């Protein structure tokens, strides 16, 4: 058995960063979750469900009693760091684009094994799972790493034509194109029979890249980035949670996690739909594997017939989860408005309060994809050393032993469960905190602010329990 040297270890880390930089586009880790749910079934998860609900409820009560102004001041504190210019942005994006080209070439021409071909591993594990977490910690790395900015700048320079002659996207369109594209992405990730198939993924990712670049040329880079490029929109929303802030002049500062959300403007209906879709898609990913869900459709989870057999129920479920979450969220905001006797429009209140979904979405992401990240992340590092299955060993990781045992057994189940449960509970507590900050902005009178939050807090308590239940209940895979 091989033991990795410090040099190899260092190489792995630089590879991890590099691979994040190389990353690109669409679908998901299928049922590759390696965690053993059987051990979790023996843990006292019921206490966690009750405790989590209490923690979220208690945080609401504490916030209601604290003087809002001092809390707000505390939360807005910044620790200035240094200035970080964005002069290298185009270059980094071009490097990222080069990596993307290599990856989508590896899709059809590399190994057919989704655990040896770097494309599905980078896209689903390093990008969709890993980069999302990095965005939540370090801020909007994607605005540097995306594989469009560099090529777009290059094209603009070559043609002597930038955004100034771009066609206008109608105002009413908002980010609906991104909502549609994200829905397509979620469907491909969660429902398509083979999102891990390297060639299939290469086609989807390559097509998305091309269409996006064309749209950026036609409508302008900034406009399409804000209205159509769903990955960038998702990542930038997540980045608003990060404890690192960077202002327009490039000055970096540390702030409290989630504090940047408070400065957000109300989202239009399309932005609201986008955020709710982000949370509902990862929620449905969890739900769709539970014995409960499969039982509704008479599917034997012990002889799960595979993704090709659940396309219809999955499509229905994804749509219904989104519709249900949207309806319940709007109802909670509406009831809050009534309780606080607010004269603000529902659209304005909901558009602001929906930002409180970000910590929850991030928490679900952590909890749901943690095991896949730990195991498939290792496969990803190995695959990058030999992207075309030609026997290369570019980074010294090609022959590394993938230690699946990292998520196996009762001990791992215990700590994984605790990390996952903590993420879910903490995410909801922070969501309550963020919502509270917005409520104060909407209703400067403290009693009204607290009252307006009551229904939304009930929803968050329910979602905490739901999130923990998804992690505790029997599932396939």
């Amino acid at each position, binding site marked *: 058995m091989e033991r990795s040297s410090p040099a190899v270890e260092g190489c792995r880390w630089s590879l991890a960063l590099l691979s994040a930089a190389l990353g690109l586009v669409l679908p998901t880790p299928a*049922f590759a979750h390696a965690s053993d749910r059987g051990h979790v079934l023996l843990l006292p998860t019921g206490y966690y469900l009750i405790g989590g609900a209490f923690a979220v409820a208690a945080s609401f009560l504490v916030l209601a009693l604290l003087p809002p102004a001092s809390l707000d001041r505390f939360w807005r504190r910044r620790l200035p760091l240094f200035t970080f210019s964005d002069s290298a942005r185009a270059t980094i994006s071009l490097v990222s684009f080069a990596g993307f080209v290599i990856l989508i070439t590896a899709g059809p021409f590399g190994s057919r094994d989704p655990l040896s071909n770097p494309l599905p591993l980078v896209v689903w594990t390093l990008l969709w799972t890993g980069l999302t977490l990095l965005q939540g910690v370090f801020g909007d790395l994607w605005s540097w790493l995306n594989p469009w900015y560099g090529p777009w700048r290059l094209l603009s320079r070559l043609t002597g034509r930038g955004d100034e002659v771009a066609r206008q996207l109608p105002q009413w369109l908002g980010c609906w194109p991104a909502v549609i594209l994200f829905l397509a992405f979620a469907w491909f990730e969660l429902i398509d029979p083979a999102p*891990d198939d390297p060639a299939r993924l290469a086609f989807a990712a390559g097509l998305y890249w091309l269409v996006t670049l064309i749209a950026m040329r036609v409508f302008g880079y900034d406009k399409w980035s804000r209205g159509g490029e769903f990955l960038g929109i998702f990542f930038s929303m997540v980045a608003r949670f990060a404890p690192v802030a960077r202002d327009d002049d490039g000055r970096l500062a540390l702030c409290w996690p989630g504090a940047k959300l408070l400065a957000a403007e109300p989202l239009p209906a399309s932005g609201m739909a986008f955020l709710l879709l982000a949370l509902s898609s990862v929620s449905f990913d969890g739900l769709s594997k539970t014995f409960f869900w499969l039982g509704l459709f008479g599917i034997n989870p012990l002889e799960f017939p595979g993704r090709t057999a659940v396309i219809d129920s999955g499509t229905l479920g994804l749509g219904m989860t989104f519709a249900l979450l949207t309806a319940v969220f709007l109802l909670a905001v509406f009831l809050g408005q009534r309780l606080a006797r607010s004269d603000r429009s529902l659209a304005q209140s909901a558009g602001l309060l929906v930002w409180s979904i970000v910590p929850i979405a991030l928490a679900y992401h952590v909890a749901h994809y943690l095991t896949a990240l730990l195991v498939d992340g290792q496969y990803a590092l190995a695959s990058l050393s030999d992207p075309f299955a030609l026997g290369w060993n570019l980074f010294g990781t090609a022959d590394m032993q993938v230690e699946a*045992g990292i998520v196996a057994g009762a*001990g791992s189940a215990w700590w994984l469960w605790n990390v996952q449960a903590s993420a879910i509970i903490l995410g909801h507590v922070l969501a309550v905190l963020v919502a509270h900050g917005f409520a104060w902005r909407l209703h400067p009178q403290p009693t009204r602010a607290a009252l307006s939050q009551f229904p939304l807090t009930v929803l968050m308590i329910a979602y905490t329990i739901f999130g923990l239940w998804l992690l505790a209940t029997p599932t396939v895979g």
Partner: protein
Amino acid sequence: MTDKNGFFDLSKTTLTRRNALKGLAAGAGLAMAPGFVRYSQAQSSAPIKIGFQSHRTGIGAAYGRWYEKTTAAAIKAINAAGGINGRQVEVIIEDDGTDPGRGAEVVGKFATQHKTDIVFGTLFSHVVIGSAPAAGEAKMPYFVVSEGHHVASTKLNRYVFQPGITDVKSQIQSMAPWIAANAGKKVTQIFPDFAFGYDHRDYLPPALKAQGAEVIAQIAIPPTESSFTKYFPQIPAETEVIYHVMVGPAVLTFVKELGEFYGSNRPQLFGFIDSLEATDINSPGLEFLDGSHFWEGSPRYAQPDDSAAQKAYRAAVGIDDNGAAVGDPKDVSTAAHMFGCWETLYVVKKAMEDAGYKGPEDRAKLVEATEALKEFAEGPEHPQGPKTFNGKIHQCFGIQNISKVEGGKLKVVHKTKIEDGLYEAEGDYTTQAL
């Protein structure tokens, strides 16, 4: 058993998944390998292509990972010893998502796109059953490692073989003599209420009856059940043996609750390791299994009397004395089943050599050559034990292990005879046209 042919002398090169699976193990060292000279005049130097229908994702992924490791190790050994008919072997993996629908698609892809010589390696029964028609249609020899009775039932087609692992009917039947003689005569079965459980429900009672024992109760548990205490009162008081074959995430809960129900005064317990394959036998909740017995295809734990071939096989695949990955003790293997990949590949090698196999145009000859095989001697190619092969039903028959949980390990206490698992053929594939 000694390693006369040097199959396991892998010291010259590091075993890696990649080069083994890509058939890149060639090179100067190979020319020296035993067997190479014999085949050096072979007509074609192009590699033999084996399509590996692999459960890389989906519910079979934990098995799939170990099937892949075992396959890589076998191919490495075969190539190091000169390949098949002097040609190196290349494995092409296609993920079937443990999905019968995709399984058929994958077989089609192997036939038309990759143009592989055979398709190999499928485990889950529903994928085998879903893929077999596509293999028959493409006239593609399809070597599965599934342990299902579907191949031997002769309800599939002439292109489907299971020569490297015994089928569940044979396994169950061969348990009966030991259970009746050592555990007890009155048996209550607890099984999941679907096809996997039905095999045990249907095959055990007649086998026990033939041994003078009887099944006195059969308790079918709905597959979605996660709490079992309410079923235990259905176990008759006179039960001497509980025969359990629960599978799925709730198995640990099942064992724990059974332990709470009985306390220290329990009937004998007999199970199939399928319930706990890839799961540490020392996991919390499984304490109640101490002293109970399990069927094992190939033993998970190294045994004091392991043959040289068994030791070499374990080293080649990379499992330690506890049946876990070398260097990753929590990664428990699927030892009871995965040996089937190793042995199947050696059967393919033998059949191809017997047939003088040159390429896809010889697939029919390969089918006939496989059907003509009669027995496989225990040794480096068949480390699990000796086997016979029934060419009419395309199924091998072999020994089974009965292991006792003792001191946190599974200790083999009985090895069945091949005859214990034989049964009347239910049909004859050889009458079907090729």
